[in-house]
């Protein structure tokens, strides 16, 4: 084993270095030219890491760079193996590599060797291990030379990272991207471009962009490239239509970016294509739909206008609007809001102001509907129904106005109201008639029973009297028969007449309406009852004021007054002269005629309204058939009025007849 400091060793070593460097330098004359000091200097100073190990793996030599890297002086390295030094992560790998060289006697090249220093910094080395041969061709040491490639590796990694990123963007972009030279030959292209052009991905790259363009676009692009290449500008964009391999047309927006070398100028250009066929199609569809919409609007039966609220001008109108307002299309466009109306609306408000209010509501997003009076060019006023809706324009206030002439509708509405009124009136009448019919039916029923009853009595009596005579036909009985038959027959006749009277009144066979003087009728009745008046010393006090004459049936009035007066006389107190007070007064909608007597009165608690019923008598008077007041009531009601009574026993009766005031003749 040669010691490092032995001259032989030194010579050998230097010789070997010489050889080593001689080969590197490539000079045959190196032996003379280079001294051992220079070698030492080279070995010491060179930035390579140089070391040597023996077969036991222990270091026999280490240069300055190597010591610097390890951070240890040479004395501490030499004589130790890697494990003892303890600064390598993977000593086994190193030792194996050493052994390989010792065994094979061949140089070994290790492209990548990691090393971590005491501070934890990772280094990468490119290492060569070679046997150090002596003259005899033997070796017991290996020479290890390492180059620090950490920085380079880093750069490479970083570059490859960014390259990867770039590649990824390029490859996977949705937009077609190509790289072209100044003649528009395609140097590189991505998947998306192939798809755009409809080319199979697997085909070779070499391609010419000009192939896929139409003449006009091609010329435009070529012109623009000139300026790009000469760096008048570094980028531009334009609309291009690509003609695909499949013969289809693709609308694109194309963005071209020049890439320049600092010294050589234009290098290549990156061209990005954005497919806008969809957008173009949407635009076309929009145009189509707008056209359709136009047709609809133009042909709408209602007047349609678009109002720009900011300028208060109508910016668009349809045919129906022209017809409604009587203006030409362009004349309408000159009109401002509110000018197609009279100054004021029906409610007195100023048209412009009110229209403005409605428009404001519409702007808030409400659907506004209202009636309006519009004014045509010729000045004619038209009732209309107006509908407003705001149209969705971003920065403008556009309101769609629809106007419909509702003259006919208003007429129809009015007629409908009239009809409804008529129906309501007819209905009310029907209800009235119904009531009256019901009343009449009831009364008729009641009357039927009463009539049959009232006729049966005298009829039964006639039968009974005849039976009586037949069972014992004496002369005396015959006289009795005659006398009593007389009474009954009179009774019967009167009953029949009364019933007939009631029927007549009930049938409302129209009585002739004439002007009747109440005073005159009272006087006439007094005359007809003059004997009774005289006998009883009766008196009549009349107080009619202005209500002397009424328009009524003379017959009825005479009958009523006669009945009331004769009742008053009939039911007078025994010894007291009957006084009958007749007065008349206007009370609201009614004319009240009041008959007050001072006779026997009636116990109303007991008899109530039975007094006006049929066949009702309340006193033991032989000549009362009980029909009188029934007839009187029927007659009063036939005149459209009502009759009521107030009375207490022995305090006389007050009859109140109410008649509708229109009956008064003035």
């Amino acid at each position, binding site marked *: 084993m040669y010691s490092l400091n032995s001259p032989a060793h030194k010579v050998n070593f230097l010789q070997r270095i010489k050889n080593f460097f001689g080969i590197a330098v490539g000079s045959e004359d190196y032996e003379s030219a280079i001294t051992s000091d220079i070698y030492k200097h080279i070995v010491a100073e060179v930035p390579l890491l140089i070391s040597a190990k023996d077969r036991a793996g222990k270091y026999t030599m280490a240069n300055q760079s190597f010591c610097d890297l390890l951070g240890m002086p040479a004395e501490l390295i030499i004589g130790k193996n890697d494990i003892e030094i303890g600064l390598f992560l993977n000593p086994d790998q190193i030792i194996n590599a050493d052994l390989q060289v010792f065994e094979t006697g061949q140089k070994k090249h290790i492209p990548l060797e990691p090393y971590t220093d005491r501070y934890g910094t990772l280094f990468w080395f490119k290492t060569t291990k070679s046997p150090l041969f002596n003259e005899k061709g033997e070796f017991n040491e290996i020479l290890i030379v390492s180059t620090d490639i950490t920085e380079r590796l880093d750069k490479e990694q970083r570059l490859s990272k960014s390259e990867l990123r770039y590649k990824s963007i390029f490859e996977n972009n949705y937009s077609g991207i190509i790289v072209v030279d100044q003649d528009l030959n395609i140097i590189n292209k991505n998947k998306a471009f192939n798809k755009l052009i409809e080319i199979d991905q697997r085909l070779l790259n070499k391609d010419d962009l000009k192939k896929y363009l139409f003449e006009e676009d091609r010329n435009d692009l070529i012109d623009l490239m000139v300026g790009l290449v000469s760096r008048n500008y570094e980028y531009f964009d334009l609309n291009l239509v690509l003609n695909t391999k499949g013969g289809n047309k693709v609308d694109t927006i194309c963005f071209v970016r020049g890439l320049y070398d600092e010294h050589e100028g234009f290098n290549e250009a990156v061209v990005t294509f954005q497919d806008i066929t969809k957008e173009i199609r949407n635009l076309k569809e929009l145009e189509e739909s707008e056209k359709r919409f136009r047709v609809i609007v133009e042909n709408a039966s209602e007047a349609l206008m678009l109002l720009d609220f900011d300028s208060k001008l109508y910016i668009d109108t349809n045919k129906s609007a022209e017809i409604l307002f009587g203006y030409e299309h362009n004349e309408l466009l000159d009109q401002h809001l509110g000018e197609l109306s009279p100054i004021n609306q029906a409610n007195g408000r100023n048209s412009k102001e009110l229209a403005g209010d409605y428009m404001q509501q519409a702007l808030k997003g409400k659907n506004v509907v209202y009636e309006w009076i519009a004014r045509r060019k010729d000045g004619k006023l038209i009732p209309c129904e107006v509908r407003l809706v705001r149209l969705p324009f971003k920065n403008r206030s556009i309101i769609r106005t629809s106007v419909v002439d509702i003259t006919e509708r208003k007429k129809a509405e009015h007629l409908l109201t009239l009809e409804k009124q008529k129906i309501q009136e007819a209905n009310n009448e029907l209800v009235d008639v119904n009531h009256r019919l019901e009343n009449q039916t009831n009364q008729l029923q009641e009357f039927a*029973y009463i009539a*049959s*009853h*009232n006729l*049966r*009595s*005298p*009829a*039964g*009596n006639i*039968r*009974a*009297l005849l*039976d*009586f005579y037949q*069972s*014992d036909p004496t002369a005396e009985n015959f006289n009795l028969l005659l006398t*009593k038959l007389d*009474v*009954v027959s009179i009774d019967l006749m009167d009953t029949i007449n009364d019933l007939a009277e009631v029927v007549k009144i009930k049938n409302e066979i129209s009585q002739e309406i004439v002007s009747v003087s109440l005073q005159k009728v009272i006087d006439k009745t007094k005359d007809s009852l003059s004997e009774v008046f005289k006998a009883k010393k009766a008196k009549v006090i009349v107080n009619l004021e202005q209500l002397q004459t009424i328009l009524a049936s003379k017959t009825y009035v005479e009958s009523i007054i006669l009945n009331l007066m004769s009742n008053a006389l009939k039911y007078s107190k025994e010894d007291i002269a009957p006084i009958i007070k007749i007065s008349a007064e206007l009370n609201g909608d009614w004319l009240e005629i009041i008959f007050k007597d001072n006779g026997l009165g009636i116990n109303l608690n*007991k008899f109530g309204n039975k007094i006006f019923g049929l*066949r009702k*008598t*309340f*006193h*033991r008077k*032989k000549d*009362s058939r*009980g029909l009188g007041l029934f007839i009187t009531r029927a007659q009063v009601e036939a005149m459209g009025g009502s009759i009521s009574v107030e009375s207490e026993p022995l305090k006389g009766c007050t009859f109140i007849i109410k008649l509708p005031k229109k009956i008064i003749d003035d």
Partner: protein
Amino acid sequence: MIELVAIVDDDDIFQFTTKVKLEKMGLAKDVKIFNDGEEIFDYLEAASLNDVPNVLLLDINMPIVDGWDFLDLYANLASDKQNKISIYMISSSINPVDVEKAKKHEHIIDYITKPIKESDMLRIFK
């Protein structure tokens, strides 16, 4: 033969012919006439049990107190008197309301329409 019959009706022809018939047919010993419900009720109240009639023919339509009103008053009559009297309602009315009312009334034996048939007479008085 019935001891005492009361005819309560304001129609004097009816009073006359009925009384005569009863006497002729020998159906009643004594017949009393009343013109209205008030008259008969006053009589019944004042009378001794002996003088209370066995049969009472009651008309509906009478002044002052009619047939129905009388029956309201009748309810207050002493029960021993009530037990003696058989009341028959007689009327020319064929109003089903009256007929129904009479037939349901607790104090009325039967309702008979005028003119009274002989068969009815026999039925009532035998």
